[in-house]
């Protein structure tokens, strides 16, 4: 798996066409209104050619850049999470039969999907979610979708000002769990396969071996990308000092409790279930929830977390402290989406930095 190949720009269409022929539903990034969104992809021209993105706390804007580049941007608001862990879906249905008994039927709907242009941070996030949904008991819908995925990563040449995957312990280049990984260079992509399925596709596309110069160009771009990231991530220890830190109130004074951070975060997994009526009976619907939602902590007649301060604390502590105990790793992958999309411009790395300070000078 150590060979690097070269995929010229015209062959990008062949890649997409081949995957569609193999009955994958192809999904890839496209410009939609004023942001980048992953949607059905059939044509390479639909990709965001010449599009860059500018991120800052509470700020996101698409920019115009080199038209020969389709991946000169950092990340889209939604990540690939909705393709594995759907925003809303039916999980089982129930009907009364003639004898008055009730019959339950699981609903496991999926189809093979090829995700083209996945960012490395989203692969990392997928592996984080794997530990949630593929541990015992295995969530059958997530497992079915996960198994039938074909993943084409495009490594990150243009991290944003909000990105901190390096500080989070990860990298601008994906190392595992992809079928194909590509790094965009001037006139195409340096490609490596990461699986048998990927190797087969490389062969079907009849890719040539990448030259030393092409590999060098790819490495140079990735090295430059790493150097662009400046944010740091401090460590937090769960103790009385942290629980009672006055900075929580400082954050609460700015946070509006909208929960947008939880919606754009590629690792957040909270979801709620409810019963919906159908024409034949009822179905149990699962949909994304948020720990900022008023009734998330509802028990014995009232929510346990009644205010923004306790809700923000729950979110941040889970992401950076409790997640480690639960799943042996941090819940944060450093994608920076929560920073870009927070209407109050809260930068989670700055908040973690303040909370890690033991003198209470903020």
């Amino acid at each position, binding site marked *: 798996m150590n060979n690097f190949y070269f995929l010229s720009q015209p062959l990008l269409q062949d890649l997409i066409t081949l995957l569609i022929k193999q009955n994958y539903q192809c999904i890839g990034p496209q410009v939609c209104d004023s942001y980048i969104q992953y949607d059905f992809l059939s044509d390479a021209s639909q990709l965001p050619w010449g599009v860059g993105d500018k991120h800052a706390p509470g700020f996101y804007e698409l920019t115009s850049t080199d038209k020969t580049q389709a991946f000169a941007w950092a990340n889209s608001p939604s990540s690939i999470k909705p393709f594995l862990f759907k925003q809303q879906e039916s999980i089982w249905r129930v009907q009364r039969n003639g004898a008055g008994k009730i019959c339950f039927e699981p609903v496991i709907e999926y189809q093979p999907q090829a995700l083209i242009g996945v960012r490395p941070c989203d692969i990392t996030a997928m592996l984080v979610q794997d530990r949630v949904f593929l541990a015992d008991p295995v969530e059958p819908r997530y497992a079915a979708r996960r198994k039938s995925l074909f993943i084409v990563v495009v490594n990150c040449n243009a991290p944003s000002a909000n990105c901190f995957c390096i500080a989070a312990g990860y990298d601008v280049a994906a190392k595992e769990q992809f079928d194909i990984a590509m790094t965009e260079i001037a006139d195409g992509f340096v490609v490596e396969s990461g699986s048998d399925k990927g190797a087969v596709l490389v062969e079907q596309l009849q890719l040539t071996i990448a030259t030393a110069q092409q590999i060098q160009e790819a490495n140079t771009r990735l090295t430059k990308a790493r150097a662009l990231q400046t944010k740091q991530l401090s460590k937090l220890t769960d103790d009385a000092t942290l629980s009672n830190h006055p900075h929580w109130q400082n954050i609460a004074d700015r946070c509006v409790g909208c929960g947008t951070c939880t919606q754009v975060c590629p690792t957040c997994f909270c979801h709620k279930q409810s019963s919906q009526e159908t024409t034949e009976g009822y179905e149990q619907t699962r949909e994304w929830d948020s720990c900022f939602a008023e009734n998330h902590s509802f028990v*014995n007649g009232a929510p346990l977390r009644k205010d923004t301060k306790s809700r923000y604390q729950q979110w941040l502590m*889970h992401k950076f402290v409790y997640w480690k105990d*639960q799943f042996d790793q941090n819940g944060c992958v450093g994608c920076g989406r929560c920073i870009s999309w927070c209407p109050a411009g809260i930068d989670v790395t700055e908040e973690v930095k303040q909370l890690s300070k033991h003198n209470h000078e903020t």
Partner: protein
Amino acid sequence: MKHENTNHFTPGEATIINRIQESPDVFSLFLKLTDPKLHQSYIQAIPGQFVMVYCCGIGEVPISIADGFTEEYSCQLTIRAHGHVTRQLSALQIGESVGLRGPFGQGWPLQQNHHKDVIIITGGIGCAPTFGAIKHILRYRNQYGTTHVLHGVKHSEDLIYCDDYQQWNKTAAIDISFAADTNPLPNWHEGYVTTLIDQLDIPTPDNTVCFICGPEIMMIKAAEQLAQRQLALNNIFLSLERNMHCGVGHCGHCQCGSQFICKDGPVFPYEKICNKIRN
């Protein structure tokens, strides 16, 4: 705890074999799962575990297993008609069906505490998750030491399992004391159940284990009092309650610190969660 054939995600149909009105707002349902394999899997249920009960068209709620498997029924659930779903469950009759998922979670550590003295402290509907534990101790009486049960209610009219408590007290195999905030019966304490702890003789605290279930404030107070009586914090067990949707550690609602109440609990050694529930 992994069971073959338990249904984690999709409910199985269970029929109401019997129904008892225990008190004005508390009722017991004796449920039998239709699928024989699912029914058999409840033989492994441990007192303190819970199930997700589905009321058709209304929703699901987590309910502790009050008592376990017999050939006639998969489990007994004792439920307080308090919220949206439980009020609808309370209207169901014998012969009607519900959905069941489970059993889930960690139960009372009975097998791990043979030959210890046992103190069981409960409040209100909190007696239900310990009902099966008391029955287990009585069934295997010589595996456990001196056993005390302290149970508190708001009003003596709220007492459930009256016949069982009366019968057990008669055997003298365990010692049961009651407390009521109002209208205590003769021999009952008037006030909080935690006051009864002070009157309790605990000759060997390092060989004593305690199971506590009830309102969280009461559980914390009881645990702290027992700690002062030299019980180790990892010999005091609480059954916690949180908002639950999935029951299997996926939906995120039931977390208390890093613990998922549904799969790491609901029974916890006090030492593990005291920092997160004591304010």
